[in-house]
C-alpha cells in the first residue's frame, strides 16, 4: 500500500517539531527516515501510526485519508525501539495477539504463529516468556508479531538499536530479505547511516523537522543536496574546507583549486570524502597538513590531519591503505584524487554545483 504525507506539521505548544513534510512512499518500498536524534523522524513515524495527532496536513494510506483514523483501524504493524512485548504472555501469545484481536480461530492462529516464528527462527521458544529471552530474541519476537498478519504497512522505530554490533548486521540482512519477500511497504526510522544505506530503497534525510533530501542511498551518498546531508551521511565524515570562490577558482588558507562553472561566492565550502583523498609526497598537492592521529581499523587506516590553517581545530580525514605508516606530527601533503568534490554555500548550506567535480577538473 502506498503512503503519502502532505504538508505535515506537528507542534508541541509553541515548539514546532515537524515543519511541513511531504513524502510519497510507493507500494512495497522500503523508506528509511534518517536523521540525528530530535530531528522529528520518530514523531513523523508516530503520526503515520496514529499515535500522535497531526497539527496540520494529511496522512494518506493508499487512497484513504487516515489523518483522523484511530490506530486500530489503520492496519499497521509497528516494531518499537524497546520491543514492547507483553511480559505476561508467552512468545506464542505475544505473536498471536494481533490475530486474537481479529478473532482468528485457534487452529489458524497457531499455524500462523508457528509460520511467523519459523521466519525469525524462534519456533523452539514459543512457550517461553519475554523475560527468559535475550535482547536479540526479544527483538525477533517483536518482528514476528508484526509479520504474523499482512498489514498495509510496517513501521519500525530504530528496531536494531538495542542489539550488539554482530547481531545488528545479522538482523539487518534478515530484515531486508524479509521485507522484499513480504513486499509490504515499510517505513524505518534510524539515526544509523549504515542501516539507512544498507536497508533502504529510498532514504529521507531529516533535520530540524524538514526533509533535507529524499533519494536512493547511492544518490544520497554520491550527490548530497546540502551541507547537512553531506556531513551526516558517510563515516568518517566528509571533509569541509572553508574558502572563497572567485573567477572559477576555490581558494582557502591551505589550498587552492579550480572550480569551473561556479559563480563567485565569498563564503563557500569545499567538501570531499576521506576516500577521495590521498597523502602524497608531491609538494604540489592541494592541501598541506600535519598528521594528528593514525587509526588502523584492519582493512584501512584513518589518518586525521590538522590543516596548517589559521582557523584552529580544522581537520582533514584521509582514508589510506592498511599498510600506511607515518609518525604523528609529520608534515604531509594531501592530494584530491577521487571523482567527487562538492561545493556548498556556507550560509545556506546548499550545493553550488549540480554534479560533483572530478579531481581532473580541479587542476
Amino acid at each position, binding site marked *: 500500500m502506498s503512503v503519502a504525507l502532505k504538508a505535515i506539521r506537528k507542534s508541541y505548544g509553541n515548539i514546532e517539531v515537524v515543519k511541513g513534510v511531504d513524502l510519497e512512499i510507493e507500494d512495497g518500498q522500503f523508506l528509511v527516515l534518517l536523521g540525528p536524534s530530535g530531528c522529528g523522524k520518530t514523531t513523523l513515524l508516530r503520526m503515520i*501510526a496514529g499515535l500522535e495527532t497531526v497539527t496540520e496536513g494529511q496522512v494518506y494510506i493508499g487512497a484513504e485519508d487516515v489523518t483522523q483514523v484511530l490506530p486500530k483501524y489503520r492496519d*499497521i504493524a509497528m516494531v518499537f525501539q524497546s520491543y514492547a512485548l507483553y511480559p*505476561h504472555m508467552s512468545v506464542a501469545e505475544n505473536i498471536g495477539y494481533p490475530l486474537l484481536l481479529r478473532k482468528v480461530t485457534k487452529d489458524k492462529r497457531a499455524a500462523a504463529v508457528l509460520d511467523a516464528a519459523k521466519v525469525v527462527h524462534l519456533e523452539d521458544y514459543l512457550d517461553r516468556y519475554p523475560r527468559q529471552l535475550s*535482547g536479540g530474541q526479544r527483538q525477533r519476537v517483536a518482528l514476528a508479531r508484526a509479520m504474523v498478519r499482512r498489514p498495509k504497512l510496517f513501521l519500525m522505530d530504530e528496531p536494531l538499536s538495542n542489539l550488539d554490533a554482530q547481531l545488528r548486521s545479522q538482523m539487518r540482512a534478515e530484515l531486508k530479505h524479509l521485507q522484499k519477500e513480504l513486499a509490504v511497504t515499510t517505513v524505518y526510522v534510524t539515526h544509523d547511516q549504515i542501516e539507512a544505506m544498507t536497508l533502504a530503497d529510498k532514504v529521507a534525510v531529516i533535520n530540524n523537522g524538514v526533509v533535507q533530501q529524499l533519494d536512493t542511498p547511492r544518490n544520497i551518498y554520491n550527490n548530497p543536496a546540502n551541507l547537512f546531508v553531506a556531513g551526516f551521511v558517510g563515516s568518517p565524515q566528509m571533509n569541509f574546507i572553508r574558502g572563497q570562490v572567485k573567477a572559477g577558482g576555490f581558494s582557502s588558507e591551505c589550498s587552492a583549486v579550480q572550480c569551473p562553472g561556479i559563480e563567485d561566492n565569498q563564503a563557500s565550502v569545499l567538501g570531499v570524502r576521506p576516500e577521495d583523498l590521498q597523502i602524497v609526497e608531491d609538494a604540489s598537492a592541494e592541501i598541506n597538513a600535519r598528521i594528528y592521529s593514525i587509526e588502523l581499523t584492519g582493512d584501512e587506516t584513518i589518518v586525521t590531519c590538522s590543516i596548517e590553517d589559521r582557523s584552529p581545530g580544522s581537520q582533514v580525514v584521509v582514508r589510506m591503505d592498511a599498510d600506511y605508516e607515518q609518525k604523528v606530527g609529520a608534515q604531509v601533503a594531501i592530494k584530491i584524487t577521487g571523482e567527487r568534490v562538492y561545493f556548498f554555500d556556507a550560509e545556506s548550506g546548499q550545493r553550488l554545483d549540480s554534479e560533483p567535480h572530478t579531481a581532473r577538473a580541479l587542476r
Partner: protein
Amino acid sequence: MSVKPKSLWQKMWEPKDLQSMAPATKVLSYSILLFWTFIVLFPLYWLFVTSFKLPIQVSDGPYYIPFIDFEPSLHAWEYIFIDLGRDTLRPYMNSIIIASSSTVLAVFIGSMAAYALTRIEYKPKVGSIVGFIVILGLVVYLTVVVKMQWQLTLSIGFALFVSFVFAFSRYFKRSLGNNDILFWIISQRIMPPVVSVLPIYIMFQQLGLLDTHFALIVTYMAVNLPIAVWLMRDFFARIPVELEESAMLDGASRMRVFLTIYMPLAKPGLAATTMLILILSWNEYLLALFLSTADAQTMPLMVAAQNATRGPQWWYMSVLIVVMIVPVLIAAGFIGKMISKGQLSGAVKG
C-alpha cells in the same frame, strides 16, 4: 602479611567472615526482633485465651496459661454461636458481603480512573470550573431560598452550564492538569469522615435506604476510591506506554488494553490495593454506626455492642474478634500469593 590480633571489642562487632554476622550484632538484632514479635503477638494471644475464660476468671485478674492458671471453658463460644446463632451469622455475612463488594467496586473503578489519569491528559479549564460553581450556587439558592421546584432549577442549571461551556470554554486560557485532578481526589480523604457522616446519613434517610447493604457498599466504595486511585496510578505509571501503543496498533480498543494488558501487569499493585481497602472496609466502624441499625449491621458494631449496659463483656468480644480475624487471614493468604516480583521484566529493554 601478618595479621594483627583482634581485640575483644573487634571480635564482638566485626564479622568473622563475609558470610556471617558479628556476634554482638547478631545478639542485638535478634533480641530486638524477639521483643517486637512479643509486642505484636501478645495481644492476639491474650484475646485468644480470654475467649475461653469464664466472666469470673476474667475479673480475677491477668492469667495467661490455660489449664494451669485457669480452666478453659467454651461457654462464650456456645453463647455466640448457639444462643445467639443467627444474630451472629447475620452481621458476619453482612460484613463479608459489604466489605468484599465495596472493595471489588472501589478497586475496579479506581483502577479505571487511575489508568485514565496516567494515560490521558485532561485539561479542565479554570473558567469552566468557576462557571460550574457559580451555576451550582444559583441552583441551590433558587431551590432552597426562593423555593422553586428542584426539578426545574436543576434542569435549567444543567442546560445553562452546558451552553456556558460550549460558548465560552474556548476563550479560557488557564487550565488544570492531571495532577490537580489527582490532588482533588485524594483531598477527599484529608477531611475526617465525621465531617461527612451526617450529610451521608440524611441523604440515605431521604432515599429510604438506611440499614441496607446498598447504602454501606456505596458509601465504603466512595470513601475508599481515592485510595484506590492514588495507589493504582503509581502502578500503572510504571507500565511502559509502548505496550499500550503496540496493543492499539495490533487492533485493541482502550478497554481491551486496560483489561488484557494493564490489569494483568498491575497484579501486584491490585493485590496490595485490594488488601488495604478490604481491611479498611472490614474494620470500618463510624459510617456503619450511622448507616446500619439491625439488618445491615456489621461485625465491628457487633463487637462494640458487647460493651453493653452490663459493662464490657470481654469474653464475648474476644470470641467475635477471633472469628473476625479469620476471613482477613484467609484473604491475605490468597492475595499475598499474587504479590510477586518481576511482572514487568522483559517488556522493554531497560
